[in-house]
């Protein structure tokens, strides 16, 4: 029985080792090297020291944290709010739920292409909508002042995932709690704020965690929309690592990758503690 149990986990262990553990070890180990594909030389912490004085890395770090903040502080609260409202099943809630969920199932690349047309300064819908309001058109994606906000605008309102998670969690809350509250004279708003919201702690924490993990590795939207420009004003850590890789600077690229993983790990621990995910 014990042998069978051991054997049964071998495929999973092999897959985990092959596709996660070994690449992770290689990534971290080679982050201490100067590796161009042609030669490999151990340079200690040189790549990490270089980051501190590299203005583009600092921009990439700042942008990544900005995208992460938009995801956590805009997307998640909006998704929670919409989910809570739709859970009350107002008229047309199913149609709204479907409409809001559609962007979530569109691939990131397709979504980025749609938004690159939306933001197009010559023929885009945004400038056309703003023109009657007397707001002059801008080149939203290629103006340093607006580019980062324009990129964030593409994903800040993709509420589908958070909304669905929240609605599912609300459905699992015992109805008796609300009935008792109503008997005690609690208004609808008080029920939402004092019963629903506290009981959503685990679900909100999970949404924040998933948002953090998605945004810390932000790549496809930025790559397709702006390639990180203009003047690196939208570049993310993942895209900067990719650029370093394209330039044959593989050791530095892997050091940036290691930073992404380290940063992600720290944020996971913080979010888990903050939301006490798993506790009832």
């Amino acid at each position, binding site marked *: 029985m014990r042998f069978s149990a051991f*054997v049964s986990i071998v495929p999973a262990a092999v897959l985990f080792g092959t596709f996660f553990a070994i690449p992770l070890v290689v990534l971290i180990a080679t982050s201490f090297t100067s590796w161009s594909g042609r030669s490999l030389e151990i340079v200690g912490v040189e790549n990490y020291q270089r980051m501190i004085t590299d203005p583009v890395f600092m921009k990439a770090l700042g942008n990544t944290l900005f995208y992460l903040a938009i995801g956590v502080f805009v997307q998640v609260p909006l998704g929670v709010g919409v989910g809570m409202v739709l859970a009350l099943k107002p008229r047309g809630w199913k149609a709204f739920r479907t409409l809001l969920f559609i962007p979530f199932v569109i691939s990131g690349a397709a979504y980025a292409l749609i938004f*690159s047309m939306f933001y197009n300064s010559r023929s885009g819908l945004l400038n056309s909508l703003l023109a009657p309001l007397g707001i002059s058109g801008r080149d939203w994606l290629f103006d340093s002042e607006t580019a980062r906000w324009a990129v964030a605008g593409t994903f800040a309102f993709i509420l589908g995932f958070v909304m669905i998670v929240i609605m599912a969690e609300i459905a699992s809350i015992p109805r008796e709690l609300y009935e008792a509250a109503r008997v005690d004279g609690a208004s609808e708003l008080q029920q939402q704020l004092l019963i629903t919201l506290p009981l959503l702690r685990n679900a909100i924490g999970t949404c924040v965690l998933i948002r953090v993990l998605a945004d810390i590795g932000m790549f496809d939207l930025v790559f397709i929309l702006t390639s990180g*420009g203009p*003047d690196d004003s939208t570049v993310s850590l993942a895209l900067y690592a990719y650029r370093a890789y*394209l330039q044959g600077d593989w050791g530095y690229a892997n050091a940036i990758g290691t930073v992404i993983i380290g940063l992600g790990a720290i944020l996971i621990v913080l979010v888990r503690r903050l939301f006490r995910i798993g506790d009832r």
Partner: protein
Amino acid sequence: MTHSKFPTGVVIAAVAAGALTLAACSGGGQEAANDELVITCATCQESPTDPFLQYNFEAAQRFNEEFDGTYRIETLSNANAGSGDERLQYYQRLALADDLPDLFQLNSAEISALSETGSLHDFTGELASDTAWADTFQPGTFDALTGIGGEVWAIPQQRDPIGIYYNKDLWSKAGYDELPATWNEFEEGARALAETGAIPLALDGDWATMLMWTNLIGTAPGGQEFLNEGIAGKDFVDDEAAYEATERLRDWHVEGLVNSDAFSGEFQNAAAAYLSGSAATVPNGPWFVKTNLQGDAAIDGIYESTGYSVSPGWDDGQGLIVVSGAGWVSGAEDETKLEAVLAFLKFVSSEEEVIIQAEQTGANPAVIVDQTALEAADLEPLSSALVSASNDVALTYPHVRVHGPAGFGNAWKNLWPAYVKGDIDTETFLTRLADDANASGD
């Protein structure tokens, strides 16, 4: 009696692993059973969208038919076959694993970078021992494919003059029967065009924008030296031609002579402006005719209204970008495979094949072709006229996007919008462009 039984899943997994191992071990055979010599080609796959890949595919089929029983090309399916940012890295990884295909295509900047792995075949010996074949190539076609030590890393696939398409009707409304011959006249014409409501020049922030930059530099005194040599260095700021061209091109944007969506790096933005009849001018190569001018996105009559011209010049003589950057390279090491590689390269550089390629792709032959045969071929008249005009043009020079450092395109796309919008000055732009374009992990 007790038996320790393996779960069914484990048995299936073990069998599958065994089968995969066997399959992997048997996959490396290059020699077919009937002594036919098989070589691999990573840019010979069928493609409904890329006319060059499609031509390569069909040429490989014709080669296989002609050399049936002697040589055979095995087509590898390759997501990085066409030009793209990741192609160089893809082949560098294969070079690291000592697993380069026997045949594939790269542009000159990629060839230069990949040659440093020491895995590319040097064709110097073959060309020297077969001068009849070597002499069929047009003068200068090997320049961009030759290493510092004189190594010939690739056999050129094409030699294309890249000119400027212009809408004759729009320019005519502004008072010009043809594209102006000097930059000053071009600017005056562009301003006149803008007054008629047309967009004088359609650019994209990448390929097309760099074409105009290259033309502005290449037609200036000393500009050709910069485009041929200086571009690989780190001193762009002190080059007068580059400095002047950069500011002039920026001013066109600031003045509104260029489409406002000229920074995305998507050529389709520039193409859409021209094909819709909104823009009067767009620079590009001969392939623009088949892929855009005769495509569904073009309004009726735009092809008929289009002229194709060499670049304006500053004062003395006009110029033309000539690209011979793309070439066939080989990662084959043993002599027998190289024999098949050479047979294929001679096959695709034969007069018959280069004319088929020209007909299918619009690309012009890298080899000298009999004028009668060219005239008899079904070549695109717009680009053929430019080929003829290129014989008389005063100045020719390579395109920075093809001949420049591998990182040039990405560096430009990142910095150009910020420069045009006034975030950085000319010195900073050129300094950072030179640094970023030439950055590598060395």
